[in-house]
C-alpha cells in the first residue's frame, strides 16, 4: 500500500451549516469505493447518535480514500471532517492544520453566508488550497451562476475554478476529486527526518485505550516505536498504527504526509492532547509543531442528580465520559439546596448541553444543571488570590480586595444591515468596541472586547435572533480584567438557594435582581402556600416577587366510572413532580435554575 508522497492529499470539507457538507463527504466515500453503497448509512462520518440528531459534528473524523484519477495515478486522499461549533474552534484549527486543502461548499440557492467567510478565513490562515463547490444545483430555486460570481467577487477565487455539484444526486463528485488531486499540493515533509506527527483528535476505546488521530508531517511512525508527547512529556510504546477506511484498519506504518491513528496503551485522553506533537523518544525532533494550546474549560456549572440515590451513578458516568473528553473537568460539590453533585467545567454552552444530554441518555440519569458561570479571580486583602467558579463560593465582601473576570475578543461576521443591532447588543453586554472592517459582499467584521460572562448569558442566541440567523461568532480568551462585581443571592420561601446565586456587575445588580425574581415567578409553579422570591445583595433585599398559593384543584365529579381516570390523572401529576427539586418546602423546576441565562 506504499503511496509516493506526491500522490498523497489531505483535505477537509468546509461549509456553512446545512449547505451539504456531510452529504458531500458521504458521496466522496462512496465514489472512491471506500464505503460500498449498500453499507452507506446516511451520514457515515457523524458517528454519535447525538451528532446525527443535531446535525453537527462533535468529534473529528479522518478517512483514507484511494482514487484512480484520469492521469492514471492512484491517489491517497485523506478526508478530515471538522467539528462545526464555536465551542470547538481550537479542535477545528488543529484539524485544519492537518490538511493541505479544503473543499468549500456553498449552497446554490443560499449563496455565501457569514460562516462561509469565517471558514474561508480559517482555511487561508492555514494556507490551505481551496476547491470551491456550488452544491444543491438540482433544487428548483438554485442559481448556481450567480453564486459562482459571488464566489469570485467575495472570496476572490476564479469563477472558472468553481465546480457545480449536487451531493444528493451525485453530480460533480468526480470533478471535485479531480480538482483535489490537481489543485491541492502534496505534502512536503521528509520521510527520513525525525518524527513529527500532529494530534488532531483522540477517542477512548474501552478495549484498546486511547486511539490517537494523527497526521504525520515528518518522519515515519510504526509499531514498536517508543513515542514522546512533546507538550506533556509523556512517553508510550506504539502497539498499533492504522488508518480509517472508515473502520479502523491496521497498516505497517504512517509516513510523512499520511493521516491515521496510533494506539499505545494510553489510558486517558489527557495524555493525548489535541495539538500536541508526537515524536520518536529515541530520536526526538528539535521543536514541536506550532500552535499548541492547553485547552481549559471556560464555563462552569453544577450537575446534580434529581434523585439523590443516583449520585454514585453520576460519578461513574462522569469518569467514563472524561476518558473520551479531555476538555471535561469536574469535582465534587455540595449544595445546601441541591445536595451532592459535581462542579463541571466545559468549553462552552454547547459542550455543556452535550455532556448533560449524554449523561442523561447514555447513563440513564435525571440531572439538574445549574446556570453556567465563568471562573473569576478574587484577590483577597491578605494578598492571596483564589479562583472562584461557583458564585456561592465568593468570599465575604469584607475580605475581597478586587475581583477580575475573564475577557474575550469576540469577532462577529454579519451582513451590514445588522451592524447596528450587533453593536447595540454588544454594548448592552459591557462590550468595548475594538474594530470594524467592511469585507467584500456586504459582510462586516466587528470585534469587541467583552467579559466572557456576558457571552455565556444568552449572547449567542441573541446575536442569532437579532441578525435573523446571519451573524456568526468566534471568541478567544485574552486575559482577566478587574471589574466591580457583587454576588446576588436568591431566597425562595425565605431560605437562600445557593444554586441560584450569581455574580453580576454592581451597577446592574438591582435591575438583574428584579428581572430574575420576575422570571422566577413565572417559572416556579404555584404551591400550597404563597412563595416569596427575593433577591439580595450582601443581606439587603433588592427585589421581591410572590408566587400566589394554588387557588383551586378539585374535581367536581367522582363516581364509579370516573375513578380509574381520576387516579391516572393524579398519578401523572405526581410523576411530573419528580422532575421538580424540593428546596425546603418549595418545589422548583429545572428551568428555574437556568433563569439567569435569559434575563433580557
Amino acid at each position, binding site marked *: 500500500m506504499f503511496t509516493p508522497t506526491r500522490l498523497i492529499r489531505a483535505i477537509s470539507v468546509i461549509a456553512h451549516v446545512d449547505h451539504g457538507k456531510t452529504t458531500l463527504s458521504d458521496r466522496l466515500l462512496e465514489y472512491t469505493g471506500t464505503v460500498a453503497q449498500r453499507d452507506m448509512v446516511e451520514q457515515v462520518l457523524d458517528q454519535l447518535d447525538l451528532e446525527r440528531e443535531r446535525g453537527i459534528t462533535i468529534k473529528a473524523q479522518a478517512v483514507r480514500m484511494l482514487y484512480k484519477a484520469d492521469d492514471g495515478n492512484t491517489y491517497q486522499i485523506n478526508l478530515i471532517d471538522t467539528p462545526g461549533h464555536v465551542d470547538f474552534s481550537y479542535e477545528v484549527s488543529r484539524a485544519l492544520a492537518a490538511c493541505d486543502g479544503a473543499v468549500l461548499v456553498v449552497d446554490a440557492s443560499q449563496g455565501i453566508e457569514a460562516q462561509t467567510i469565517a471558514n474561508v478565513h480559517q482555511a487561508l490562515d492555514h494556507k490551505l488550497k481551496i476547491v470551491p463547490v456550488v452544491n444543491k444545483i438540482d433544487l428548483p430555486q438554485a442559481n448556481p451562476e450567480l453564486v459562482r460570481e459571488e464566489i469570485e467577487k467575495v472570496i476572490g477565487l476564479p469563477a472558472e475554478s468553481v465546480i457545480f455539484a449536487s451531493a444528493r444526486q451525485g453530480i460533480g463528485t468526480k470533478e471535485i476529486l479531480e480538482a483535489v488531486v490537481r489543485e491541492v499540493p502534496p505534502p512536503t515533509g521528509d520521510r527520513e527526518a525525525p518524527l513529527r506527527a500532529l494530534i488532531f483528535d483522540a477517542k477512548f476505546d474501552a478495549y484498546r485505550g486511547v486511539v490517537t488521530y494523527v497526521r504525520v508531517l515528518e518522519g515515519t511512525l510504526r509499531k514498536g516505536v517508543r513515542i514522546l508527547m512533546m507538550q506533556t512529556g509523556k512517553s508510550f510504546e506504539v502497539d498499533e498504527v492504522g488508518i480509517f477506511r472508515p473502520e479502523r484498519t491496521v497498516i505497517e506504518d504512517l509516513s510523512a504526509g499520511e493521516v491515521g491513528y496510533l494506539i499505545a496503551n494510553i489510558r486517558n485522553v489527557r495524555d493525548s492532547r489535541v495539538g500536541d506533537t508526537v515524536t520518536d523518544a529515541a530520536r526526538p525532533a528539535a521543536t514541536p509543531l506550532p500552535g499548541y494550546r492547553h485547552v481549559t474549560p471556560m464555563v462552569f456549572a453544577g450537575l446534580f442528580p434529581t434523585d439523590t440515590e443516583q449520585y454514585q451513578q453520576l460519578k461513574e458516568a462522569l469518569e467514563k465520559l472524561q476518558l473520551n473528553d479531555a476538555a471535561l473537568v469536574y469535582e465534587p460539590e455540595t449544595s445546601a439546596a441541591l445536595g451532592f453533585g459535581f462542579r463541571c467545567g466545559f468549553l462552552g454552552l454547547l459542550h455543556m448541553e452535550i455532556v448533560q444530554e449524554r449523561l442523561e441518555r447514555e447513563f440513564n440519569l435525571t440531572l439538574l444543571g445549574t446556570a453556567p458561570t465563568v471562573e473569576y479571580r478574587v484577590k483577597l486583602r491578605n494578598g492571596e488570590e483564589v479562583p472562584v467558579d461557583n458564585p456561592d463560593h465568593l468570599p465575604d465582601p469584607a475580605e475581597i480586595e478586587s475581583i477580575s473576570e475573564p475577557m474575550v475578543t469576540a469577532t462577529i461576521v454579519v451582513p451590514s444591515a445588522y451592524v447596528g443591532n450587533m453593536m447595540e447588543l454588544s454594548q448592552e453586554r459591557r462590550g468595548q468596541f475594538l474594530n470594524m472592517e467592511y469585507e467584500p459582499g456586504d459582510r462586516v467584521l466587528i470585534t469587541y472586547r467583552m467579559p466572557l460572562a456576558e457571552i455565556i448569558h444568552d449572547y449567542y442566541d441573541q446575536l442569532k435572533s437579532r441578525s435573523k440567523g446571519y451573524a456568526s461568532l468566534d471568541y478567544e480568551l485574552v486575559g482577566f480584567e478587574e471589574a466591580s462585581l457583587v454576588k446576588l443571592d436568591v431566597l425562595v420561601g425565605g431560605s437562600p438557594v445557593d444554586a441560584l446565586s450569581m455574580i453580576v456587575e454592581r451597577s446592574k445588580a438591582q435591575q438583574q435582581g428584579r428581572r430574575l425574581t420576575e422570571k422566577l415567578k413565572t417559572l416556579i409553579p404555584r404551591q*400550597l*402556600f404563597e412563595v416569596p422570591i427575593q433577591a439580595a445583595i450582601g443581606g439587603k433585599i433588592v427585589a421581591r416577587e410572590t408566587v400566589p398559593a*394554588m*387557588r*383551586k*384543584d*378539585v*374535581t*367536581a*365529579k*367522582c*363516581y*364509579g*366510572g370516573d*375513578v*380509574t381516570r*381520576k*387516579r391516572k390523572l*393524579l*398519578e401523572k*401529576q*405526581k410523576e411530573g413532580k419528580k422532575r421538580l427539586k424540593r428546596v425546603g418546602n418549595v418545589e422548583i423546576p429545572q428551568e428555574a435554575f437556568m433563569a439567569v441565562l435569559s434575563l433580557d
Partner: protein
Amino acid sequence: MERISSLYLHVPFCTWLCKYCDFNAYAVLEGLIPQYVEALAGEIEAQKARLPVGPLETVFIGGGTPSLLTREQLRLLLDRVRAIGLRQDAEVTLEANPSNVTAERVEGWLELGINRLSIGVQSLQPGALRFLERLHSGVEAIEAIRTARAAGFRNINGDLLYGVPGVDLSGWMETLETVIDEGIDHLSAYELTVEQGTRLGQEVRTGLVRMPDADSQLEQYWAAVDRLEAAGFVHYEISNWARPGRTCRHNLANWHYRPYLGCGAGAHSMFRLDEGTTERRWNVKGPHAYIKRIAQGQDAADDREQLSHDRALGEAAMIGVRLMGGTPTTGNFLDVRRQLVESGLLIEDNGRVRLTRRGVELANQVGAAFLV
C-alpha cells in the same frame, strides 16, 4: 370474591349531546335502543351466572338519558334485576331529563319499583340553559319536579351546574333558592368543567368562551354550601347535599369503596378478589360493539386492571376523603397524613381524617398524596 350489592346500568342515548358533556353518550342512535336494551338485559343475566351478585341494595340507571326508554323496556331490565335479587328496601334510581318527566311516565316508573328520581335541572337561568345547550326551559324543570312529587316520588335529586359563563353569583343563588323552595330532597351541584374533546373545550381553547376564574367559581360553591346548610341540607360529599335520610346510598357505596357491578356500554365495575386485590374492569364503549359482544355470548369487558392491597388503600383514601364526614385512617399513610395536616388541608380526629375548607378547594392535591 366479595358479594356485590350495587348495580349500575348504563343507557348511552341522548336526543342531543350538550357541548360540555364527555360521558359515553350518543345522539342520533335512538334506532338502536331496542337492540341495546335486549343486550343489556342479556348482560345482566349472564353476569348473574358468573359473579356473586345480589341481593341488591342499590340500583342506578344512568346515562345518557335513560328516561328515553319506554315502560316496557325498563320493565324488561328491572325484571332481570329482580331475578338477581332485589331487597325490599333497595334504592332504585333513574336519571331523567326534565322534558321526559310527564305524569304518565312518572306513574309507570313508580309502578316498576323506581323510587328515586335524579332530574337534570342544571340551571333555571335562560341564558345558562342556552349556553349549556339544554333543550328544556327552567319552567319545564320546575314542572318536572312538581310532577314527580305529585305522583308520589319522595326521593328526588336535582343536578345543578355552577360556574357557568354569564351566570353571576345572584343568578346562581336564584336557581338554588327556587330548587330548595320546590322541596327537593337531594342536590348535586357541580362546577362546570371544561373537558378536552368536547365542543366547550374547543371553544375555550380558541378563546370563543372564557370560563369564570377560580375565585368566582369558589365564591359560588361556598355560597351554595352556606345556603344549603341553612336550609337544613347535609353536605355529605364535595358536590352532594341531602335532606336527612336522603343521601344517595348507591353513590355512598362507591365512595365507601364497596364492590359494584356495571352493565352496559362503557360501564365500569369494581370487584374485591379473595386475596385482597381490587379489580376494576370496563366494558367496550361503543353501543354497536357492545351489542355484538353480548349477542355472541361474550363478556363485554374491554380491559381490566388489578390493584394491589396497598394501591387500593390509596385509591380508597383518594375517594373517601371527598366525603365531608371524612374517612377512617385505618392506621396507614402516617407521613402523608402528618404533612397534609401540617399544610392545613386535613383534620384528624377520632381515627378519621376529613378535609378542611382549604382541603376541599385542593382536594386533588390531597387525593394525589395518598396514591403510591
